[in-house]
């Protein structure tokens, strides 16, 4: 029997030599048959080899369940070589889901108490790897005994086994908490490391334990200081850094103990500064320690100077030649850009450099961070950089970059002219990637800037003459030419180069747009209406325009056909009305006084600080990945801009007499969240005159006995909406009904789709970190109808 089955090495060799999947399967099936027979007939001398072969086969993905019982037999054998393969088999083949796993409990119990280190080690290892809650309960006391054994080999393993047991059965904390204080005085690195890990686990699971262990902060500080300043043996050094793993683990525990606790944070302040300045940064090991230090500094109540030091460390990381280090720096800075804005601003030039990283995961984060750093003082320079990036960045980053620039321009534009120029440039560079409402926004913007009409129409005309393929640009240009064609032909504009344009050229250009294959139906609609408007704006006869209208009166496209027929009617039967109908458009919707009103409102409610508001694009886009729920009827990313943009529309709208908007009925408030005294309320406002805009004020109140700190509220809405979160009034909601925190959300709903809103809250309360994600139900229909 042994003769015809292969030795492990030979089996492996044969499998590797198999040329096809089928061949491999054949070899394995043949061998498994031997193995099964051997298990059935019993072969005590060699069964460990058979099991080893089976484990190899299992690693490749083949079924091996018939070996489970053999594992148990081998574990029970007195021979060490049997036991070690048996236990390995148990770890690989058995888990909680198999009934057989409980049968090991007895073997493990025996092996734990029979006093031979190597065997105890095996038993502990297996218990840690696959021990179920039941097994852990049964064996807790055995493991506890081993914590006090003289042998460090066993003790270090027992400590880490305790970690696993607590994860499975949190109540066992009662057994494993008391020994910790003494274990912390160990000199053996393995035991010390295990103890710190154990304490970390205990603290993460219970606020009482957290409170209890605050008293070891001075000891931890002492241990870490010794490591950093005095060093340790060569055996425990990595790249010249003393036991970086222990350092990192201690820093992590300090973070948990110092969080929200003034006294502990103060105790560790000096030490953190020491570690930050004394750690060698030439190799990854040192940088790993530094990184953990930064994470700790940012999470506890550290002095302002220390926080700046931490941000500067991240800034230095950005200049490191190792890409991984740049990556963690960018990710961390993104998390800090809101809370420590001015500190991060100092590294803006370096961040901008990172835009040009060839690695996509780096340039994407650099883009997010750059957009978050734009504020009113650097907007010109930053926009310049971002525009440059937009021109050459990979296609999957273009939509985010384009919308980011447009959003920043909207928030911080120093002048209207700069704003128009910026949008123009974005439309020319990345027109196909901008969002649907960019067209409407630009038209509104231009419409509202009367002094810039001549400038705008000239620039747009030149841009259009060069390239009629970028649809958003073409639409805006067509609209402008229609509205301000008279300014195009006559007069001079100091701000652009002198432009001599003839009436015939203008008409020819619009006709080209109308006829071009590249033009979307909506675009052609714009062009047709523009042509019609020009009949009143330009002097001379309108024969050419009339001709176009009559041709399009029989166009295939129903929308164009209708327009052309109506315009024709204007020429023939209603010529006396034509001038009045095609008059210059009044200011549209969102423009003018309304904007100031909203700005005032949001200032009152949100108490905006000097720091730049939260970048909504980044947060919203990150959260949107979680929100498959909120994708309504699938929206084709390619779908053309709505056929019915606000200005320059069908005749029906033009002929409507404007009526005073009815004062909106107040929308009832909504309580959306309550947990342990922390309550979240939403109040809604639909400003009159802007039917697509909804303002939501989030108010957080705290009636409990403990402060809520590091409160961050993020929101997400379906794709067709546009969301902007203003900076919150603060990140702390004091206890006992202290000053509530408020935050303003602006939501644009151009498609009038049903509103859905998902909120994500993260905060600390009663020493615990809380994260809640939930969808807001029962939103009143008045919020979107």
């Amino acid at each position, binding site marked *: 029997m042994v003769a015809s089955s292969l030795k492990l090495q030979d089996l492996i060799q044969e499998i590797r030599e198999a040329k096809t999947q089928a061949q491999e399967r054949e070899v394995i099936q043949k061998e498994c048959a031997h193995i099964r027979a051997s298990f059935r007939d019993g072969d005590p001398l060699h069964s460990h080899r058979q099991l080893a072969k089976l484990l190899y086969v299992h690693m490749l993905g083949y079924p091996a369940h018939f070996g489970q019982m053999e594992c148990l037999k081998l574990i029970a054998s007195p*021979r060490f070589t049997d036991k070690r393969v048996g236990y390995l088999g148990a770890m690989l083949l058995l888990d909680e889901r198999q009934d057989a796993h409980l049968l090991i409990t007895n073997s493990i119990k025996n092996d734990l108490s029979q006093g031979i280190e*190597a065997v105890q080690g095996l038993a502990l290892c297996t218990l840690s790897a696959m021990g179920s809650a039941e097994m852990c309960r049964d064996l807790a006391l055995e493991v506890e005994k081993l914590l006090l054994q003289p042998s460090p080999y066993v003790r270090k393993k027992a400590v880490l086994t305790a970690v696993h047991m607590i994860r499975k059965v949190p109540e066992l904390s009662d057994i494993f908490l008391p020994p910790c204080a003494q274990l912390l005085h160990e000199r053996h690195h393995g035991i010390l490391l295990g103890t710190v890990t154990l304490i970390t686990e205990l603290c993460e699971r219970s606020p009482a334990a957290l409170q209890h262990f605050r008293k070891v902060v001075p000891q931890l500080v002492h241990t870490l200081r010794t490591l950093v300043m005095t060093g340790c*043996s060569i*055996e425990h050094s990595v790249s010249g850094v003393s036991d970086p793993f222990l350092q990192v683990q201690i820093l992590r525990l300090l973070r948990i103990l110092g969080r929200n606790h003034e006294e502990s944070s103060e105790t560790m302040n000096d030490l953190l500064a020491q570690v930050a300045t004394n750690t060698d940064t030439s190799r990854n090991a040192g940088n790993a320690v530094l990184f953990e230090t930064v994470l700790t500094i940012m999470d506890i109540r550290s002095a302002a100077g220390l926080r700046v030091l931490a941000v500067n460390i991240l800034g230095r990381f950005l200049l490191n030649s190792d890409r991984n280090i740049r990556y963690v720096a960018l990710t961390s800075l993104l998390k800090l850009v809101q809370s420590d804005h001015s500190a991060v601003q100092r590294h803006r030039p370096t961040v901008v450099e990172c835009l040009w990283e060839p690695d996509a995961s780096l340039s994407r984060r650099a883009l997010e961070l750059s957009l978050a750093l734009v504020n009113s003082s650097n907007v010109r320079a930053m926009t310049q950089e971002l525009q440059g990036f937009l021109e050459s960045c990979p296609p999957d980053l273009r939509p985010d970059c384009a919308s980011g620039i447009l959003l920043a321009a909207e928030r911080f534009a120093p002048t209207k002219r700069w704003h128009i120029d910026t949008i123009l440039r974005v439309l020319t560079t990345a027109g196909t990637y901008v969002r649907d409402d960019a067209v409407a926004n630009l038209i509104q913007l231009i419409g509202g800037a009367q002094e810039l009409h001549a400038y705008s129409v000239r620039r747009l005309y030149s841009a259009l003459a060069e390239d009629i393929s970028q649809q958003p640009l073409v639409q805006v240009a067509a609209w402008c030419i229609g509205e301000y064609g008279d300014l195009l032909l006559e007069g001079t504009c100091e701000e652009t180069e002198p432009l001599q344009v003839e009436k015939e050229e203008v008409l020819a250009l619009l006709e080209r747009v109308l006829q071009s294959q590249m033009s979307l139906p909506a675009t052609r609609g714009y062009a047709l209406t523009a042509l019609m408007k020009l009949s009143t704006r330009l002097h001379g006869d309108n024969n050419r325009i009339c001709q176009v209208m009559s041709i399009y009166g029989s166009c295939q496209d129903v929308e164009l056909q209708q327009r052309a027929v109506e315009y024709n009617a204007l020429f023939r039967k209603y010529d006396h009305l034509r001038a009045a109908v095609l008059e210059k458009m009044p200011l549209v919707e969102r423009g003018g006084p309304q904007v100031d009103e909203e700005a005032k409102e949001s200032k009152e409610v949100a108490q905006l600080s000097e720091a730049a508001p939260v970048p909504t694009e980044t947060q919203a886009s990150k959260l949107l990945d979680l929100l498959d729920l909120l994708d309504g009827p699938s929206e084709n990313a390619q779908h053309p801009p709505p056929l019915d943009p606000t200005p320059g529309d069908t005749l029906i709208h033009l002929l409507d007499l404007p009526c005073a908007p009815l004062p909106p009925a107040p929308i009832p408030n909504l309580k959306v969240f309550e947990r342990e005294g922390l309550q979240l309320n939403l109040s809604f406002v639909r400003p009159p005159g802007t039917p697509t805009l909804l303002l939501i004020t989030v108010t957080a109140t705290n009636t409990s006995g403990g402060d809520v700190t590091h409160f961050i509220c993020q929101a997400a809405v379906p794709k067709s909406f546009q969301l902007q979160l203003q900076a919150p009034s603060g990140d702390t909601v004091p206890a006992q009904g202290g000053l509530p925190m408020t935050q303003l959300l602006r939501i644009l709903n151009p498609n009038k789709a049903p509103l859905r809103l998902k909120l994500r809250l993260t905060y600390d309360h009663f020493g615990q970190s809380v994260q809640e994600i939930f969808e807001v139900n029962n939103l009143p229909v008045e919020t979107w109808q």
Partner: protein
Amino acid sequence: MGCPIIRQIEEKITRELLQTILARKPKMCNLKIVYKRYASLYFSYAIEDQDNELITLEIVHLYVELLGKYFGSVCDPDTIFNFEKAYFILDEFLWGGEVQEISKKNVFKADLLQEEAETPRTVLEEIGLT
């Protein structure tokens, strides 16, 4: 807490990894995969959201050094033909996803890693007590 996976990235393994990630329930924390390539071998390590990626790279590197010291070199056949030894070394170095012992001297001292005797003896014999 981490979970080490030592294999070559063939399509099979990548698929397995993806399956594991996709099988995780919505309430579980996000997994980050840290990997390092040594010639034709990839070593990947899954860590939780709040874990330090840079120290994970050190963990991976230390394990590779341990393998190198034990086998004399680290290449594909070494780890494959001696896969149980690779597991035993791992069990002396990491434990339940946490770092256990970083002194190479201490790791190799372990009885667990002693070569298999020609005729299997009892534990007591092997330890030298009979």
